[in-house]
Protein backbone atom coordinates (compact mmCIF):
# COMPACT_ATOMS: atom_id res chain seq x y z
CA UNK A 1 0.00 0.00 0.00
CA UNK A 2 2.71 2.47 0.98
CA UNK A 3 4.83 1.34 -1.94
CA UNK A 4 2.30 2.45 -4.51
CA UNK A 5 1.86 5.72 -2.67
CA UNK A 6 5.59 6.35 -2.87
CA UNK A 7 5.85 5.45 -6.53
CA UNK A 8 3.03 7.67 -7.57
CA UNK A 9 4.90 10.96 -8.00
CA UNK A 10 7.52 9.20 -10.09
CA UNK A 11 4.98 7.74 -12.45
CA UNK A 12 3.20 11.02 -13.05
CA UNK A 13 5.69 13.81 -12.47
CA UNK A 14 3.89 16.60 -14.32
CA UNK A 15 0.49 15.98 -12.75
CA UNK A 16 -0.33 18.64 -10.18
CA UNK A 17 -1.30 17.27 -6.78
CA UNK A 18 -4.99 16.40 -6.55
CA UNK A 19 -7.09 18.72 -4.44
CA UNK A 20 -7.68 15.95 -1.95
CA UNK A 21 -4.93 13.39 -2.51
CA UNK A 22 -6.57 10.01 -2.89
CA UNK A 23 -5.40 7.70 -0.16
CA UNK A 24 -4.16 4.35 -1.32
CA UNK A 25 -7.03 2.58 0.42
CA UNK A 26 -9.55 4.43 -1.66
CA UNK A 27 -7.70 3.53 -4.80
CA UNK A 28 -7.64 -0.07 -3.84
CA UNK A 29 -11.31 0.08 -3.17
CA UNK A 30 -11.83 1.57 -6.59
CA UNK A 31 -9.87 -1.32 -8.05
CA UNK A 32 -12.04 -3.76 -6.14
CA UNK A 33 -15.11 -1.95 -7.46
CA UNK A 34 -13.76 -2.34 -10.97
CA UNK A 35 -13.05 -6.00 -10.42
CA UNK A 36 -16.61 -6.48 -9.19
CA UNK A 37 -18.06 -4.49 -12.09
CA UNK A 38 -16.17 -6.64 -14.56
CA UNK A 39 -17.10 -9.76 -12.64
CA UNK A 40 -20.75 -9.03 -13.37
CA UNK A 41 -19.93 -8.09 -16.95
CA UNK A 42 -17.65 -11.01 -17.74
CA UNK A 43 -20.12 -13.73 -18.80
CA UNK A 44 -22.01 -11.47 -21.16
CA UNK A 45 -18.82 -9.91 -22.47
CA UNK A 46 -17.30 -13.31 -23.26
CA UNK A 47 -20.39 -14.41 -25.16
CA UNK A 48 -20.42 -11.23 -27.21
CA UNK A 49 -16.72 -11.55 -27.92
CA UNK A 50 -17.00 -15.20 -28.95
CA UNK A 51 -20.27 -15.23 -30.86
CA UNK A 52 -20.59 -11.71 -32.26
CA UNK A 53 -17.34 -9.81 -32.49
CA UNK A 54 -15.01 -12.66 -33.30
CA UNK A 55 -17.24 -14.16 -36.07
CA UNK A 56 -17.63 -10.71 -37.65
CA UNK A 57 -13.86 -10.32 -37.88
CA UNK A 58 -13.49 -13.90 -38.93
CA UNK A 59 -15.95 -13.54 -41.79
CA UNK A 60 -13.70 -10.89 -43.28
CA UNK A 61 -10.50 -12.88 -42.67
CA UNK A 62 -11.84 -16.17 -44.05
CA UNK A 63 -13.26 -14.44 -47.11
CA UNK A 64 -9.61 -13.98 -48.18
CA UNK A 65 -8.59 -17.54 -47.30
CA UNK A 66 -8.90 -21.01 -48.68
CA UNK A 67 -10.54 -22.60 -45.67
CA UNK A 68 -11.36 -26.23 -44.98
CA UNK A 69 -12.12 -27.18 -41.39
CA UNK A 70 -9.35 -29.27 -39.93
CA UNK A 71 -6.49 -28.07 -42.10
CA UNK A 72 -4.57 -24.80 -41.71
CA UNK A 73 -6.05 -22.00 -43.83
CA UNK A 74 -4.10 -20.54 -46.73
CA UNK A 75 -4.27 -17.00 -48.02
CA UNK A 76 -6.11 -16.89 -51.30
CA UNK A 77 -6.25 -13.19 -52.12
CA UNK A 78 -9.52 -12.28 -53.79
CA UNK A 79 -9.98 -15.74 -55.31
CA UNK A 80 -13.10 -16.39 -53.20
CA UNK A 81 -14.73 -13.21 -54.38
CA UNK A 82 -13.98 -13.82 -58.05
CA UNK A 83 -15.18 -17.44 -57.80
CA UNK A 84 -18.42 -16.39 -56.14
CA UNK A 85 -18.94 -13.58 -58.63
CA UNK A 86 -18.44 -15.99 -61.53
CA UNK A 87 -21.01 -18.41 -60.15
CA UNK A 88 -24.18 -18.10 -62.30
CA UNK A 89 -26.21 -18.67 -59.13
CA UNK A 90 -24.76 -15.49 -57.63
CA UNK A 91 -26.72 -13.21 -59.94
CA UNK A 92 -29.84 -15.38 -59.49
CA UNK A 93 -29.55 -15.23 -55.72
CA UNK A 94 -29.15 -11.47 -55.59
CA UNK A 95 -31.89 -10.85 -58.13
CA UNK A 96 -34.26 -13.15 -56.21
CA UNK A 97 -33.38 -11.62 -52.86
CA UNK A 98 -33.87 -8.06 -54.12
CA UNK A 99 -37.11 -8.98 -55.89
CA UNK A 100 -38.31 -10.75 -52.77
CA UNK A 101 -37.47 -7.70 -50.65
CA UNK A 102 -39.19 -5.35 -53.05
CA UNK A 103 -42.34 -7.48 -53.31
CA UNK A 104 -42.41 -8.01 -49.56
CA UNK A 105 -42.17 -4.26 -49.15
CA UNK A 106 -44.99 -3.57 -51.60
CA UNK A 107 -47.34 -6.19 -50.16
CA UNK A 108 -46.03 -6.30 -46.62
CA UNK A 109 -46.13 -2.56 -46.23
CA UNK A 110 -49.36 -1.55 -47.89
CA UNK A 111 -51.61 -4.37 -46.66
CA UNK A 112 -50.78 -4.03 -42.95
CA UNK A 113 -51.08 -0.25 -43.10
CA UNK A 114 -54.55 -0.33 -44.63
CA UNK A 115 -55.53 -3.11 -42.25
CA UNK A 116 -54.32 -1.13 -39.23
CA UNK A 117 -56.15 1.93 -40.51
CA UNK A 118 -59.42 -0.01 -40.71
CA UNK A 119 -58.87 -1.82 -37.39
CA UNK A 120 -58.27 1.47 -35.63
CA UNK A 121 -61.76 2.61 -36.64
CA UNK A 122 -63.49 -0.48 -35.33
CA UNK A 123 -64.91 -0.12 -31.86
CA UNK A 124 -65.79 -3.73 -31.15
CA UNK A 125 -63.87 -6.96 -30.60
CA UNK A 126 -60.55 -5.13 -30.60
CA UNK A 127 -58.63 -7.79 -28.70
CA UNK A 128 -60.06 -10.49 -30.96
CA UNK A 129 -58.53 -8.75 -33.98
CA UNK A 130 -55.21 -8.24 -32.23
CA UNK A 131 -54.95 -11.87 -31.21
CA UNK A 132 -56.03 -13.24 -34.58
CA UNK A 133 -53.71 -11.06 -36.66
CA UNK A 134 -50.75 -11.95 -34.43
CA UNK A 135 -51.53 -15.68 -34.31
CA UNK A 136 -49.51 -16.59 -37.45
CA UNK A 137 -46.48 -14.82 -35.99
CA UNK A 138 -46.51 -17.24 -33.07
CA UNK A 139 -46.74 -20.31 -35.29
CA UNK A 140 -43.17 -21.56 -35.82
CA UNK A 141 -41.89 -20.33 -39.23
CA UNK A 142 -41.07 -23.89 -40.21
CA UNK A 143 -44.69 -24.90 -39.59
CA UNK A 144 -46.10 -22.01 -41.62
CA UNK A 145 -43.67 -22.83 -44.42
CA UNK A 146 -44.73 -26.52 -44.43
CA UNK A 147 -48.38 -25.51 -44.12
CA UNK A 148 -48.19 -23.30 -47.21
CA UNK A 149 -46.21 -25.89 -49.08
CA UNK A 150 -49.24 -28.12 -48.63
CA UNK A 151 -51.65 -25.31 -49.62
CA UNK A 152 -49.63 -24.68 -52.77
CA UNK A 153 -49.78 -28.32 -53.81
CA UNK A 154 -50.96 -28.19 -57.44
CA UNK A 155 -53.27 -31.21 -56.92
CA UNK A 156 -55.31 -31.09 -53.75
CA UNK A 157 -53.80 -27.89 -52.35
CA UNK A 158 -56.10 -25.38 -50.75
CA UNK A 159 -54.81 -22.51 -52.92
CA UNK A 160 -55.98 -24.07 -56.17
CA UNK A 161 -59.18 -25.34 -54.54
CA UNK A 162 -59.97 -21.75 -53.59
CA UNK A 163 -59.34 -20.61 -57.16
CA UNK A 164 -61.58 -23.40 -58.50
CA UNK A 165 -64.30 -22.42 -56.06
CA UNK A 166 -64.17 -18.89 -57.47
CA UNK A 167 -64.04 -20.27 -61.04
CA UNK A 168 -60.62 -18.75 -61.61
CA UNK A 169 -57.78 -20.42 -63.52
CA UNK A 170 -55.50 -22.40 -61.24
CA UNK A 171 -51.87 -21.52 -60.78
CA UNK A 172 -48.63 -23.44 -60.55
CA UNK A 173 -47.72 -21.49 -57.42
CA UNK A 174 -44.33 -22.64 -56.19
CA UNK A 175 -43.84 -24.98 -59.16
CA UNK A 176 -43.72 -22.24 -61.78
CA UNK A 177 -40.54 -20.26 -62.31
CA UNK A 178 -42.48 -17.02 -62.65
CA UNK A 179 -44.85 -17.55 -59.72
CA UNK A 180 -42.62 -19.27 -57.16
CA UNK A 181 -41.05 -16.16 -55.69
CA UNK A 182 -44.36 -14.31 -55.36
CA UNK A 183 -45.85 -17.37 -53.68
CA UNK A 184 -43.07 -17.27 -51.09
CA UNK A 185 -43.59 -13.55 -50.52
CA UNK A 186 -47.24 -14.30 -49.74
CA UNK A 187 -46.19 -16.86 -47.13
CA UNK A 188 -43.73 -14.47 -45.52
CA UNK A 189 -46.31 -11.69 -45.49
CA UNK A 190 -48.97 -13.92 -43.99
CA UNK A 191 -46.60 -15.10 -41.30
CA UNK A 192 -45.11 -11.73 -40.32
CA UNK A 193 -47.87 -9.23 -40.90
CA UNK A 194 -49.20 -9.36 -37.34
CA UNK A 195 -46.25 -7.57 -35.82
CA UNK A 196 -46.40 -4.78 -38.38
CA UNK A 197 -50.14 -4.30 -37.90
CA UNK A 198 -49.77 -4.03 -34.13
CA UNK A 199 -46.97 -1.47 -34.43
CA UNK A 200 -49.01 0.62 -36.87
CA UNK A 201 -52.00 0.41 -34.54
CA UNK A 202 -49.91 1.74 -31.67
CA UNK A 203 -48.69 4.58 -33.87
CA UNK A 204 -52.24 5.40 -35.04
CA UNK A 205 -53.47 5.51 -31.45
CA UNK A 206 -50.87 8.13 -30.61
CA UNK A 207 -52.22 10.61 -33.19
CA UNK A 208 -54.02 13.43 -31.32
CA UNK A 209 -57.73 13.41 -32.17
CA UNK A 210 -57.83 17.22 -32.44
CA UNK A 211 -55.86 16.98 -35.66
CA UNK A 212 -58.66 15.00 -37.28
CA UNK A 213 -61.28 17.36 -35.88
CA UNK A 214 -59.41 20.38 -37.22
CA UNK A 215 -58.99 18.75 -40.62
CA UNK A 216 -62.68 17.92 -40.73
CA UNK A 217 -63.63 21.50 -39.85
CA UNK A 218 -61.43 22.59 -42.75
CA UNK A 219 -63.54 20.38 -44.98
CA UNK A 220 -61.06 17.55 -45.53
CA UNK A 221 -62.70 14.34 -46.67
CA UNK A 222 -61.68 10.85 -45.56
CA UNK A 223 -58.85 10.35 -48.06
CA UNK A 224 -57.54 13.85 -47.47
CA UNK A 225 -57.48 13.20 -43.74
CA UNK A 226 -55.47 10.01 -44.31
CA UNK A 227 -53.10 11.85 -46.62
CA UNK A 228 -52.61 15.01 -44.61
CA UNK A 229 -52.99 13.82 -41.01
CA UNK A 230 -52.46 10.06 -40.68
CA UNK A 231 -49.51 9.55 -42.99
CA UNK A 232 -47.45 12.56 -41.86
CA UNK A 233 -48.10 11.67 -38.21
CA UNK A 234 -46.94 8.07 -38.66
CA UNK A 235 -44.20 8.78 -41.19
CA UNK A 236 -41.43 7.95 -38.77
CA UNK A 237 -42.88 4.58 -37.74
CA UNK A 238 -43.54 3.71 -41.39
CA UNK A 239 -39.94 4.45 -42.30
CA UNK A 240 -38.59 2.44 -39.35
CA UNK A 241 -40.70 -0.59 -40.17
CA UNK A 242 -39.70 -0.39 -43.82
CA UNK A 243 -36.02 -0.46 -42.94
CA UNK A 244 -36.47 -3.26 -40.41
CA UNK A 245 -38.40 -5.24 -42.98
CA UNK A 246 -35.74 -4.72 -45.63
CA UNK A 247 -33.10 -5.98 -43.22
CA UNK A 248 -35.21 -9.00 -42.27
CA UNK A 249 -36.33 -10.00 -45.76
CA UNK A 250 -32.86 -9.68 -47.24
CA UNK A 251 -31.94 -12.54 -44.92
CA UNK A 252 -34.80 -14.80 -45.96
CA UNK A 253 -33.95 -18.48 -45.76
CA UNK A 254 -36.61 -20.68 -44.14
CA UNK A 255 -39.34 -20.24 -46.77
CA UNK A 256 -37.20 -21.03 -49.86
CA UNK A 257 -35.33 -23.80 -48.06
CA UNK A 258 -38.45 -25.56 -46.78
CA UNK A 259 -40.97 -24.86 -49.55
CA UNK A 260 -39.06 -24.84 -52.82
CA UNK A 261 -35.49 -25.88 -52.06
CA UNK A 262 -34.38 -22.92 -54.19
CA UNK A 263 -36.17 -24.19 -57.27
CA UNK A 264 -37.62 -24.39 -59.78
CA UNK A 265 -34.54 -23.54 -61.86
CA UNK A 266 -32.98 -21.43 -59.11
CA UNK A 267 -35.91 -19.06 -59.22
CA UNK A 268 -36.09 -18.89 -55.41
CA UNK A 269 -32.45 -19.22 -54.37
CA UNK A 270 -31.69 -16.34 -51.99
CA UNK A 271 -28.35 -14.96 -50.89
CA UNK A 272 -28.54 -16.61 -47.47
CA UNK A 273 -29.54 -19.88 -49.11
CA UNK A 274 -26.51 -19.61 -51.38
CA UNK A 275 -24.28 -18.96 -48.33
CA UNK A 276 -25.71 -22.12 -46.77
CA UNK A 277 -25.06 -24.09 -49.96
CA UNK A 278 -21.47 -22.88 -50.25
CA UNK A 279 -20.74 -23.87 -46.65
CA UNK A 280 -22.64 -27.12 -46.28
CA UNK A 281 -23.01 -28.50 -49.79
CA UNK A 282 -19.83 -27.36 -51.51
CA UNK A 283 -17.79 -27.28 -48.27
CA UNK A 284 -16.41 -23.95 -49.52
CA UNK A 285 -16.24 -21.83 -46.39
CA UNK A 286 -14.10 -19.16 -48.07
CA UNK A 287 -16.79 -18.60 -50.69
CA UNK A 288 -19.52 -18.63 -48.02
CA UNK A 289 -17.68 -15.96 -46.03
CA UNK A 290 -17.06 -13.84 -49.14
CA UNK A 291 -20.82 -13.88 -49.76
CA UNK A 292 -21.50 -13.13 -46.09
CA UNK A 293 -19.22 -10.11 -46.23
CA UNK A 294 -21.09 -8.75 -49.25
CA UNK A 295 -24.45 -9.23 -47.54
CA UNK A 296 -23.04 -7.75 -44.35
CA UNK A 297 -21.85 -4.57 -46.02
CA UNK A 298 -25.19 -3.98 -47.68
CA UNK A 299 -27.30 -4.77 -44.62
CA UNK A 300 -24.90 -2.92 -42.34
CA UNK A 301 -25.60 0.23 -44.35
CA UNK A 302 -29.35 -0.22 -43.85
CA UNK A 303 -28.88 -0.94 -40.16
CA UNK A 304 -26.70 2.13 -39.71
CA UNK A 305 -29.40 4.20 -41.34
CA UNK A 306 -32.01 2.67 -39.04
CA UNK A 307 -29.99 3.32 -35.89
CA UNK A 308 -29.23 6.88 -37.00
CA UNK A 309 -32.88 7.60 -37.61
CA UNK A 310 -34.03 6.14 -34.28
CA UNK A 311 -31.28 8.06 -32.47
CA UNK A 312 -32.05 11.44 -33.92
CA UNK A 313 -35.79 11.02 -33.50
CA UNK A 314 -35.36 9.80 -29.93
CA UNK A 315 -33.38 12.91 -29.02
CA UNK A 316 -36.01 15.37 -30.15
Amino acid sequence: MTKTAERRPVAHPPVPPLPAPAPAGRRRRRLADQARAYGFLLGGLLCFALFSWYPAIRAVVISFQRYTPGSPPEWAGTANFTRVLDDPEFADAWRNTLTFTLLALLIGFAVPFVLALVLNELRHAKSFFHVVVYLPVMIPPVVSALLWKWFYDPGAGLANEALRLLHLPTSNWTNGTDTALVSLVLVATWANMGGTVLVYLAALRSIPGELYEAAELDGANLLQRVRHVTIPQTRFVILMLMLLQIIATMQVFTEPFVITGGGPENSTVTVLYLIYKYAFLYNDFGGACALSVMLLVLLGAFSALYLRLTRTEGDT
Partner: protein
Amino acid sequence: MTQGTRTLISPAALARPRGKALYWTVFTSVVVLFALAFLFPVYWMATGALKSPDEVARTPPTLLPEHWHPGGYTDAWELMELPRHLGNTLVQAAGAWACQLVFCTAAAYSLSKLRPAFGKVVLGGILATLMVPAQALVVPKYLTVADLPLIHTSLLNDPLAIWLPAVANAFNLYLLKRFFDQLPREVLEAAEIDGAGKLRVLWSVVLPMSRPVLGVVSIFALVAVWQDFLWPLMVFSDTGKQPISVALVQLSQNVRLTVLIAAMVIASIPMVALFLVFQRHIIAGIGAGSTKG
Protein backbone atom coordinates in the same frame (compact mmCIF):
# COMPACT_ATOMS: atom_id res chain seq x y z
CA MET B 1 -67.28 -1.09 -25.95
CA THR B 2 -65.04 1.77 -24.93
CA GLN B 3 -65.43 5.26 -26.31
CA GLY B 4 -61.81 5.98 -27.13
CA THR B 5 -60.21 9.11 -28.47
CA ARG B 6 -61.19 10.64 -31.76
CA THR B 7 -59.93 8.68 -34.78
CA LEU B 8 -60.10 9.13 -38.53
CA ILE B 9 -63.89 8.99 -38.60
CA SER B 10 -65.84 11.20 -36.25
CA PRO B 11 -68.25 9.65 -33.71
CA ALA B 12 -70.96 11.89 -35.12
CA ALA B 13 -70.60 10.36 -38.58
CA LEU B 14 -70.79 6.90 -37.06
CA ALA B 15 -73.94 7.75 -35.13
CA ARG B 16 -75.89 8.55 -38.28
CA PRO B 17 -77.96 5.65 -39.70
CA ARG B 18 -75.87 5.51 -42.84
CA GLY B 19 -72.67 5.63 -40.82
CA LYS B 20 -73.94 2.84 -38.60
CA ALA B 21 -74.84 0.63 -41.53
CA LEU B 22 -71.48 1.25 -43.14
CA TYR B 23 -69.66 0.59 -39.87
CA TRP B 24 -71.33 -2.78 -39.38
CA THR B 25 -70.71 -3.74 -43.01
CA VAL B 26 -67.02 -2.98 -42.65
CA PHE B 27 -66.90 -4.68 -39.26
CA THR B 28 -68.47 -7.86 -40.61
CA SER B 29 -66.24 -7.95 -43.65
CA VAL B 30 -63.13 -7.54 -41.48
CA VAL B 31 -64.28 -10.36 -39.20
CA VAL B 32 -64.89 -12.61 -42.22
CA LEU B 33 -61.58 -11.60 -43.80
CA PHE B 34 -59.66 -12.28 -40.60
CA ALA B 35 -61.36 -15.59 -40.08
CA LEU B 36 -60.57 -16.67 -43.66
CA ALA B 37 -57.03 -15.33 -43.79
CA PHE B 38 -55.71 -16.18 -40.35
CA LEU B 39 -57.99 -18.63 -38.59
CA PHE B 40 -59.00 -20.84 -41.48
CA PRO B 41 -55.46 -22.00 -42.33
CA VAL B 42 -54.99 -22.98 -38.70
CA TYR B 43 -58.35 -24.76 -38.68
CA TRP B 44 -57.43 -26.51 -41.93
CA MET B 45 -54.21 -27.74 -40.37
CA ALA B 46 -55.82 -28.98 -37.16
CA THR B 47 -58.62 -30.84 -39.00
CA GLY B 48 -56.43 -32.01 -41.88
CA ALA B 49 -54.49 -34.07 -39.40
CA LEU B 50 -57.73 -35.81 -38.39
CA LYS B 51 -58.66 -36.90 -41.91
CA SER B 52 -57.78 -40.20 -43.48
CA PRO B 53 -54.92 -40.19 -46.02
CA ASP B 54 -57.42 -40.52 -48.93
CA GLU B 55 -59.68 -37.81 -47.65
CA VAL B 56 -56.88 -35.27 -47.22
CA ALA B 57 -55.84 -35.73 -50.87
CA ARG B 58 -59.39 -35.55 -52.24
CA THR B 59 -60.66 -32.81 -54.55
CA PRO B 60 -62.87 -31.03 -53.78
CA PRO B 61 -61.77 -31.20 -50.15
CA THR B 62 -64.11 -31.82 -47.25
CA LEU B 63 -64.68 -29.01 -44.79
CA LEU B 64 -65.06 -31.39 -41.88
CA PRO B 65 -63.36 -34.78 -41.55
CA GLU B 66 -65.86 -37.48 -42.57
CA HIS B 67 -64.39 -39.89 -40.11
CA TRP B 68 -62.22 -38.74 -37.26
CA HIS B 69 -58.79 -40.29 -37.33
CA PRO B 70 -56.90 -39.24 -34.22
CA GLY B 71 -54.37 -41.81 -35.44
CA GLY B 72 -52.56 -39.04 -37.30
CA TYR B 73 -51.68 -37.43 -34.02
CA THR B 74 -50.65 -40.60 -32.24
CA ASP B 75 -48.58 -41.72 -35.26
CA ALA B 76 -46.83 -38.37 -35.39
CA TRP B 77 -46.13 -38.57 -31.68
CA GLU B 78 -44.53 -41.98 -32.04
CA LEU B 79 -43.15 -42.23 -35.60
CA MET B 80 -41.55 -38.82 -35.62
CA GLU B 81 -40.31 -39.16 -32.04
CA LEU B 82 -41.97 -35.91 -31.14
CA PRO B 83 -41.47 -36.27 -27.36
CA ARG B 84 -37.73 -36.39 -27.91
CA HIS B 85 -37.61 -33.42 -30.30
CA LEU B 86 -40.01 -31.36 -28.21
CA GLY B 87 -37.83 -32.19 -25.23
CA ASN B 88 -34.72 -31.07 -27.12
CA THR B 89 -36.41 -27.78 -28.02
CA LEU B 90 -37.53 -27.33 -24.44
CA VAL B 91 -34.02 -27.91 -23.09
CA GLN B 92 -32.53 -25.56 -25.67
CA ALA B 93 -35.10 -22.83 -25.04
CA ALA B 94 -35.02 -23.12 -21.25
CA GLY B 95 -31.22 -23.06 -21.16
CA ALA B 96 -31.02 -20.09 -23.51
CA TRP B 97 -33.58 -18.31 -21.35
CA ALA B 98 -31.70 -19.04 -18.13
CA CYS B 99 -28.33 -18.05 -19.61
CA GLN B 100 -29.77 -14.82 -20.94
CA LEU B 101 -31.41 -13.97 -17.65
CA VAL B 102 -28.23 -14.60 -15.67
CA PHE B 103 -25.56 -13.15 -17.95
CA CYS B 104 -27.50 -10.39 -19.70
CA THR B 105 -29.00 -9.19 -16.41
CA ALA B 106 -25.62 -9.19 -14.67
CA ALA B 107 -23.94 -7.41 -17.58
CA ALA B 108 -26.74 -4.87 -17.90
CA TYR B 109 -26.62 -4.21 -14.14
CA SER B 110 -22.86 -3.71 -14.31
CA LEU B 111 -23.09 -1.37 -17.29
CA SER B 112 -25.94 0.56 -15.76
CA LYS B 113 -24.96 0.89 -12.11
CA LEU B 114 -21.39 -0.28 -11.42
CA ARG B 115 -19.59 2.08 -13.82
CA PRO B 116 -16.94 -0.29 -15.17
CA ALA B 117 -13.96 1.42 -16.78
CA PHE B 118 -14.46 1.54 -20.57
CA GLY B 119 -18.13 0.77 -19.94
CA LYS B 120 -19.09 3.15 -22.75
CA VAL B 121 -16.77 1.33 -25.16
CA VAL B 122 -18.20 -2.04 -24.17
CA LEU B 123 -21.76 -0.79 -24.58
CA GLY B 124 -20.84 0.69 -27.94
CA GLY B 125 -19.40 -2.65 -29.03
CA ILE B 126 -22.57 -4.43 -27.92
CA LEU B 127 -24.86 -1.97 -29.67
CA ALA B 128 -22.75 -2.20 -32.81
CA THR B 129 -23.79 -5.86 -33.10
CA LEU B 130 -27.34 -4.61 -33.67
CA MET B 131 -26.07 -3.30 -36.98
CA VAL B 132 -24.68 -6.67 -37.97
CA PRO B 133 -27.58 -8.84 -39.14
CA ALA B 134 -27.40 -12.08 -37.21
CA GLN B 135 -28.18 -14.43 -40.08
CA ALA B 136 -25.43 -13.02 -42.30
CA LEU B 137 -22.86 -14.19 -39.75
CA VAL B 138 -24.03 -17.77 -39.29
CA VAL B 139 -21.15 -19.37 -41.18
CA PRO B 140 -18.25 -17.82 -39.22
CA LYS B 141 -20.32 -18.30 -36.05
CA TYR B 142 -20.71 -21.96 -36.96
CA LEU B 143 -16.95 -22.29 -37.48
CA THR B 144 -16.36 -20.67 -34.08
CA VAL B 145 -18.76 -23.01 -32.33
CA ALA B 146 -17.28 -26.02 -34.13
CA ASP B 147 -13.84 -25.16 -32.79
CA LEU B 148 -13.83 -22.69 -29.91
CA PRO B 149 -10.74 -20.50 -29.88
CA LEU B 150 -8.04 -21.28 -27.24
CA ILE B 151 -9.78 -24.30 -25.73
CA HIS B 152 -10.41 -26.03 -29.10
CA THR B 153 -13.64 -27.70 -28.09
CA SER B 154 -16.58 -28.29 -30.37
CA LEU B 155 -20.05 -27.38 -29.18
CA LEU B 156 -21.73 -28.99 -32.20
CA ASN B 157 -24.64 -31.24 -31.24
CA ASP B 158 -24.54 -29.73 -27.75
CA PRO B 159 -27.30 -27.50 -26.36
CA LEU B 160 -24.55 -25.11 -25.27
CA ALA B 161 -24.31 -24.14 -28.95
CA ILE B 162 -27.78 -22.61 -28.52
CA TRP B 163 -27.43 -21.35 -24.95
CA LEU B 164 -24.21 -19.36 -25.15
CA PRO B 165 -24.76 -17.54 -28.47
CA ALA B 166 -28.22 -16.62 -27.17
CA VAL B 167 -26.53 -14.48 -24.50
CA ALA B 168 -25.00 -12.30 -27.20
CA ASN B 169 -28.37 -10.63 -27.68
CA ALA B 170 -27.76 -6.89 -27.80
CA PHE B 171 -31.44 -6.09 -28.02
CA ASN B 172 -32.38 -7.82 -24.76
CA LEU B 173 -29.29 -6.55 -22.97
CA TYR B 174 -30.02 -2.99 -24.00
CA LEU B 175 -33.65 -3.36 -22.96
CA LEU B 176 -32.50 -4.44 -19.49
CA LYS B 177 -29.86 -1.73 -19.23
CA ARG B 178 -32.31 1.00 -20.18
CA PHE B 179 -34.74 -0.26 -17.56
CA PHE B 180 -32.04 -0.43 -14.86
CA ASP B 181 -30.98 3.13 -15.77
CA GLN B 182 -34.40 4.35 -14.72
CA LEU B 183 -34.30 2.73 -11.27
CA PRO B 184 -33.72 5.44 -8.66
CA ARG B 185 -30.13 5.41 -7.43
CA GLU B 186 -31.24 6.33 -3.88
CA VAL B 187 -33.04 3.04 -3.40
CA LEU B 188 -29.97 1.07 -4.40
CA GLU B 189 -27.70 3.22 -2.23
CA ALA B 190 -30.02 2.83 0.73
CA ALA B 191 -29.70 -0.93 0.40
CA GLU B 192 -25.93 -0.64 0.25
CA ILE B 193 -25.85 1.52 3.38
CA ASP B 194 -27.80 -1.26 5.06
CA GLY B 195 -24.82 -3.45 4.25
CA ALA B 196 -26.02 -5.28 1.14
CA GLY B 197 -23.35 -6.32 -1.38
CA LYS B 198 -23.72 -5.69 -5.10
CA LEU B 199 -25.06 -9.16 -5.77
CA ARG B 200 -27.53 -8.81 -2.93
CA VAL B 201 -28.68 -5.44 -4.29
CA LEU B 202 -29.17 -6.98 -7.72
CA TRP B 203 -31.06 -9.96 -6.35
CA SER B 204 -33.23 -8.34 -3.68
CA VAL B 205 -33.69 -4.80 -4.96
CA VAL B 206 -33.10 -4.50 -8.69
CA LEU B 207 -34.66 -7.74 -9.92
CA PRO B 208 -37.93 -7.46 -7.95
CA MET B 209 -38.34 -3.93 -9.32
CA SER B 210 -37.67 -5.14 -12.86
CA ARG B 211 -40.40 -7.77 -13.20
CA PRO B 212 -42.03 -6.22 -16.29
CA VAL B 213 -38.83 -6.01 -18.31
CA LEU B 214 -37.75 -9.46 -17.18
CA GLY B 215 -41.06 -10.80 -18.43
CA VAL B 216 -40.58 -9.18 -21.83
CA VAL B 217 -37.00 -10.45 -22.13
CA SER B 218 -38.10 -13.95 -21.08
CA ILE B 219 -40.79 -14.12 -23.75
CA PHE B 220 -38.41 -12.81 -26.43
CA ALA B 221 -35.77 -15.34 -25.39
CA LEU B 222 -38.14 -18.32 -25.43
CA VAL B 223 -39.85 -17.41 -28.68
CA ALA B 224 -36.53 -16.76 -30.44
CA VAL B 225 -35.18 -20.23 -29.69
CA TRP B 226 -38.46 -22.01 -30.36
CA GLN B 227 -38.87 -20.34 -33.76
CA ASP B 228 -35.25 -20.53 -34.92
CA PHE B 229 -34.44 -22.81 -37.82
CA LEU B 230 -31.21 -22.04 -39.69
CA TRP B 231 -28.90 -22.02 -36.67
CA PRO B 232 -30.11 -25.32 -35.15
CA LEU B 233 -30.12 -26.83 -38.66
CA MET B 234 -26.41 -26.07 -38.90
CA VAL B 235 -25.45 -26.97 -35.36
CA PHE B 236 -27.36 -30.24 -34.83
CA SER B 237 -26.41 -32.79 -37.43
CA ASP B 238 -27.24 -35.57 -34.96
CA THR B 239 -30.91 -36.42 -35.60
CA GLY B 240 -31.51 -37.40 -31.99
CA LYS B 241 -30.51 -33.96 -30.73
CA GLN B 242 -32.45 -31.89 -33.24
CA PRO B 243 -35.14 -29.51 -32.04
CA ILE B 244 -38.66 -29.88 -33.36
CA SER B 245 -38.26 -27.20 -36.08
CA VAL B 246 -35.33 -28.99 -37.71
CA ALA B 247 -36.79 -32.47 -37.21
CA LEU B 248 -40.07 -31.48 -38.88
CA VAL B 249 -38.29 -30.42 -42.05
CA GLN B 250 -35.87 -33.35 -42.06
CA LEU B 251 -38.64 -35.91 -41.56
CA SER B 252 -41.24 -34.20 -43.75
CA GLN B 253 -40.29 -36.28 -46.81
CA ASN B 254 -40.53 -39.65 -45.09
CA VAL B 255 -43.95 -39.58 -43.43
CA ARG B 256 -47.58 -39.59 -44.53
CA LEU B 257 -49.06 -36.15 -45.13
CA THR B 258 -51.59 -36.51 -42.32
CA VAL B 259 -48.85 -37.50 -39.90
CA LEU B 260 -46.74 -34.51 -40.91
CA ILE B 261 -49.69 -32.16 -40.49
CA ALA B 262 -50.40 -33.60 -37.06
CA ALA B 263 -46.76 -33.05 -36.11
CA MET B 264 -47.01 -29.46 -37.33
CA VAL B 265 -50.03 -28.88 -35.11
CA ILE B 266 -48.24 -30.36 -32.12
CA ALA B 267 -45.14 -28.24 -32.80
CA SER B 268 -47.27 -25.07 -32.84
CA ILE B 269 -49.20 -25.72 -29.64
CA PRO B 270 -46.58 -24.55 -27.07
CA MET B 271 -45.98 -21.14 -28.65
CA VAL B 272 -49.64 -20.54 -29.45
CA ALA B 273 -50.54 -21.47 -25.87
CA LEU B 274 -47.84 -19.15 -24.52
CA PHE B 275 -49.24 -16.41 -26.71
CA LEU B 276 -52.85 -16.96 -25.65
CA VAL B 277 -51.85 -16.89 -21.99
CA PHE B 278 -49.66 -13.79 -22.21
CA GLN B 279 -51.41 -12.12 -25.16
CA ARG B 280 -52.12 -8.91 -23.27
CA HIS B 281 -48.48 -8.44 -22.28
CA ILE B 282 -47.10 -9.48 -25.66
CA ILE B 283 -49.42 -7.25 -27.67
CA ALA B 284 -48.94 -4.28 -25.33
CA GLY B 285 -45.18 -4.86 -25.42
CA ILE B 286 -45.03 -4.76 -29.22
CA GLY B 287 -46.99 -1.50 -29.33
CA ALA B 288 -45.06 0.17 -26.50
CA GLY B 289 -41.61 -0.93 -27.60
CA SER B 290 -42.08 0.41 -31.08
CA THR B 291 -43.46 3.86 -30.36
CA LYS B 292 -40.62 4.61 -27.99
CA GLY B 293 -38.19 3.97 -30.83
